[in-house]
């Protein structure tokens, strides 16, 4: 029978969604010599189409089409299959829309770059892999694309690979993610084993809710905890949670659009997305959810603290991204704690983490692109202390930037950031044992307000502090447009109708707890006013001398610590083990026997020493031995 239109869309749209960017990536890889500038067009075109498709998808109803049998062994199969539900549809929209805008923005931003073909190719590759993650219907598929986004981020961070810092940053990013994936894989394998080889989300969900794994939380708590934490470790790597957060700030070595798309809005959020996807796994282990929540909270606070003392505009934003991601992860943990082992459908619409992801995606992308515009205007000057007074020179940029900042600080009632943050703090408030996390959240909010104010004031107000700043030029229209669009999205996203339409699962209990509201509003006021008072009209950072501030400025010395760890536990160990391997293993297995053989052979040569007497003696002695053996030994030996 002919497939109904619904089926067609449900299987062909996702396929298209996947294949278009892949296609453009491949074309660019193979033919960029021929196509030259056309590459850009191809890439943008594919991004645009994807945007449209994801819009079309918004209407469709849930489905789980199989796209490709990847590995098939008799009854076992690892498939590339899409799951289309509210979550993936919403995420698809975020990815493709921001992706599209970033493509546009890049056309302007990368104009002078001589290898922009490579850039756009990698962008398409990223779009492909990200789409894969969003659509993936089982953990393996997710892992596959998980690694692929890692690759594309590696390529994009290292876009200017002649710069050693960029090269190092890309390497660092990939390796840190690899460590996360190590745990991720273990988690997957454990689930694979526990769930009889079925790691599709639907299958897992089924067996966790009423299937064999239903009360695994009680039966084997440790196993479930390790499994959950394994899965979480993947997220830790990808979403740059403590302690694997170190790569994200360095990733700012990449071109700014990349930072906006990958390292702010989408890829880093993939971790959260994945956690929400398999929330039921985490719920199965209260301990795990507790740990996750706390790691999220710590990351949020720590990143916020660090952000207060960064001078590179992009780094400030990077750390704010970290801390917002911390929020989301904390939210995941909190919701799981709230579930407390009992399985309510956590993936149902209205997960605060997803909501914050959604709002954050837009305003953070906006902020990054804005900063990109600023940097572009200031001839790739990134130090905020060398800017200033830009408000007059680029009004639109500044306005959009201000909207973004407001959203990030969570200005009450009008900004998206406010609602999503409230949602998270609300959960923290509800969950018993969540109060410390609540206060961490509030503190983070205060700090956020503080450092954003600081950045805004220092960068845009006052008078220019450098040549570049004073001759800042206004960005071209192609870069302005995305800013505007994103500003609009930022503005409208929290409204119910928008949220419903985009299926951004606006939480049901946003803005209920007045204590929380008051707390966060107070935090906002305190933070921003502090920032205003301290930095108003300053040309240098007054806090720089403060020892505590130094600690923040140096990111709690994490990089130094890790450098030492790598030196000792990797290179040192490698040195030692190599020595052992060369000396002992090779020595015992190979050199010793060889040596013995040579010695023996050498002394055996003496038997043919050339002296007749020696030979005759040997003959005689041999005769003796033979007689002795055969006459006096062997008969007794009892053969």
């Amino acid at each position, binding site marked *: 029978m002919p497939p109904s239109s619904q089926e067609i869309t449900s299987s062909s749209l996702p396929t298209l969604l996947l294949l278009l960017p892949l296609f453009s990536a491949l074309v660019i*890889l193979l033919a960029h010599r021929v196509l030259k500038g056309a590459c850009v067009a191809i890439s943008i075109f594919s991004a645009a189409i994807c945007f449209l498709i994801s819009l079309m998808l918004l209407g469709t109803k849930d489905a789980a089409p199989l796209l490709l*049998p*990847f*590995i*098939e*062994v*008799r009854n*076992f199969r*690892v498939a590339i299959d899409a799951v289309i539900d509210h979550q993936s549809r919403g995420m698809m929209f975020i990815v493709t829309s921001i992706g599209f805008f970033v493509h546009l923005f890049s056309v302007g931003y990368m104009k002078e770059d001589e290898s922009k073909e490579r850039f756009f190719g990698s962008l398409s590759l990223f779009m492909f892999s990200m789409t894969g993650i969003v659509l993936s219907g089982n953990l*393996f598929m997710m*892992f*596959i*694309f998980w*690694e*692929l986004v890692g*690759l594309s981020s590696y390529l994009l961070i*290292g876009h200017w*690979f*002649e710069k*050693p810092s*960029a*090269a*190092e940053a*890309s*390497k660092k990013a*990939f*390796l840190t993610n*690899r*460590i996360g994936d*190590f745990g991720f*894989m*273990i988690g997957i*394998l*454990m689930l*694979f*084993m*526990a769930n*009889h*080889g079925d790691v599709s989300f639907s299958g897992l969900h089924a067996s966790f809710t009423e299937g*064999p794994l239903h009360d*695994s939380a009680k*039966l*084997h708590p440790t*196993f479930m905890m390790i499994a959950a934490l394994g899965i979480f470790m993947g997220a830790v790597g990808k979403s740059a949670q403590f302690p694997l957060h170190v790569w994200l700030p360095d990733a700012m070595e990449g071109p700014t659009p990349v930072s906006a798309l990958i390292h702010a809005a989408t890829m880093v959020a993939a971790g959260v997305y994945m956690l929400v996807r398999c929330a039921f796994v985490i719920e199965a282990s209260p301990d795990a959810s507790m740990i996750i929540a706390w790691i999220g909270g710590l990351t949020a606070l720590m990143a916020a603290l660090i952000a207060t003392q960064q001078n590179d505009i992009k780094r400030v934003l990077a750390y704010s991204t970290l801390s917002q991601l911390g929020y989301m992860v904390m939210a995941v943990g909190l919701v799981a704690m709230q579930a407390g082992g009992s399985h309510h459908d956590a993936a149902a619409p209205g997960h605060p983490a997803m909501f914050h992801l959604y709002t954050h995606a837009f305003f953070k992308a906006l902020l990054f692109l804005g900063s990109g515009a600023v940097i572009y205007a200031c001839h790739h000057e990134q130090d905020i202390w060398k800017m200033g007074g830009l408000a007059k020179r680029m009004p639109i940029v500044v306005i959009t930037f201000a909207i973004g900042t407001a959203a990030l600080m969570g200005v009450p009632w009008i900004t998206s950031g406010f609602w999503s943050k409230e949602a998270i703090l609300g959960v923290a408030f509800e969950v018993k044992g969540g109060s410390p996390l609540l206060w961490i959240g509030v503190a983070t909010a205060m700090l956020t307000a503080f450092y954003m104010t600081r950045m805004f004031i220092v960068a845009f107000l006052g008078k220019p502090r450098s040549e570049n700043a004073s001759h800042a030029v206004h960005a071209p229209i192609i870069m302005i447009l995305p800013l505007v669009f994103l500003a609009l999205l930022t503005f409208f996203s929290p409204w119910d109708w928008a949220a419903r339409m985009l299926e951004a699962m606006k939480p049901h209990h946003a803005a209920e707890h007045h204590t929380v509201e008051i707390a966060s509003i107070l935090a906002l006021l305190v933070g921003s006013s502090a920032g205003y008072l301290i930095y108003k009209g300053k040309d240098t950072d007054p806090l720089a001398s403060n020892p505590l501030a130094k600690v923040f400025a140096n990111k709690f010395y994490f990089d130094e610590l890790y450098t030492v760890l790598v030196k000792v536990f*990797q*290179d040192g*160990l*490698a*040195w030692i*083990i*190599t020595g052992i*391997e*060369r000396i002992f*293993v*090779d020595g*015992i*297995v*190979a050199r010793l026997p*060889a040596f013995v053989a040579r010695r023996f052979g050498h002394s055996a040569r003496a038997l043919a020493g050339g002296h007749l007497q020696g030979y005759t003696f040997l003959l005689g002695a041999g005769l003796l031995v033979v007689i002795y053996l055969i006459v006096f030994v062997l008969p007794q030996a009892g053969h």
Partner: protein
Amino acid sequence: MSPLEIVILLPLIAALAIWLGAPARITSVGSALLNLLLVLGLAWNFKSASAGKAGFAYESARIVLDNPAISFGVGADGLAIILALLTALVAFAAVWQISADKPGIYHIASHLIAGGAFGAFLSTDVFFLYAFHELALIPTLIMIANHGHGDDEHRKSVAWKTTVYLGVGSLILLAGLVWLVLEFSSGGKLTFDLMALKAQAAATPLPEGKQATIAFILLLGFGTLVSLFPLHSWAAPAYAAAPTPVAMLHSGVLKKFGLYGLIRIVLPLLPQGFYCPCVQNALLFMLLGNILIMGFVTIHQKRLDDVLANSSVMHMGYIFLGLSAGTEIALRGAVLLMFAHGISIALLFGLAGRMRNQIGTLELNKLGGLGAHAPVFTVLFAFGAFASIGLPGLANFAGEVMIFLGSFTTFGSTSFGPLQWAVVGALWGVVMSAVYMLRAYRSIFHGTAMAGHFITDPGWSQRVPFVLLAAVLLIAGCCPWILLGLFKTDLATLTDAASTAIHSATKAVSH
């Protein structure tokens, strides 16, 4: 005459022809291409052809000796076909990339090695299976000793080490095989025919203790040839010193013989022995040695060829892991990984060789910034490098992941056995391989180039072999089911034997 015999003889004939003075390059590349097409054809036609007994196709046998019954028997099941495919591909690439200024012996040696590999993979008679592998060793050693890299004395010593090492290994192997034949030959008369041996093994399996002993001897013998830790120390120096085509062929193809032998001979004939706890635990220790210890050793290397050589030693551990898991998924994964690793390491060695020719050194700290000068070269190298660190979409990933999955098929259980712990170690190995590969990649292609240390992109004709290999990596990585489809059935029987053995073993443990 079976087409497989042509496949085996063609390279040998080509070598002979070149020796007799035929134009080296044309003959060699031509015959290699011909063989590649032939093998592809056979693979294509395999499904329909595989009507032979026990899933073997294109069978033929010529009696060579009556008692012990030895016959030059060839035949191909999916496993053999895949490895033949690997051989054909790598051989083609290897002979193509030999630069014109090299003497004919390069081509002769390459073809001899290829012929030996074909013979080893395609014979259905234990005797010839063993014999062809040995045949392939001589040219390897001669080439290392006479045309290898490094100063004369170093080359020679490496060559001797390899010679004696592999010699001892193959002799241990021979002893094991002879014992096997003696045990499994039914009714007084000895036979080396694999089918007959299998039949006898199925009819009257040996007591487990004896099985375990023989299996362990064979494991040591084959293991030496595959550089199983701690019998590995010949491999890295040999590959580092070997001339490019030899390195490609030996590390890519010939080395797989040991694993092939284990799958082909040990698993079906001695399942209880191979999967008895003692042998298994020993094997797990050794392969973890391969993965973790060699991983660290590789991280420590300072020259690209050393990195590649050691990494290829390290990656053997994963394939052994697949064997030790023994489930069908894992075994297929192992075979897939054999193929993938062969292609990727051949690609990497080939490119490294080209780099050595142009720059003259492979010292990592003397290189840099090549990415800007030779983008095509860089991309090709990236294919190899990322494949070998198991990036999805390239062939190695599918194999590795299948091995991992196959090791976790103790369904429903929520506790780790030794195998699962080994997998955890292996997963950390994946991280380590990423570390050394990216370090190498970064210091060669990123940053800024040293003065005078430039390379040029390969011209169109020079690209052919590398592009071919890269393409294979991509295809096999994106659609592994194509390869996996080649052997639907033939591993099934084997794995049933294995799984029953495993279960009995686990029972033995649990009781």
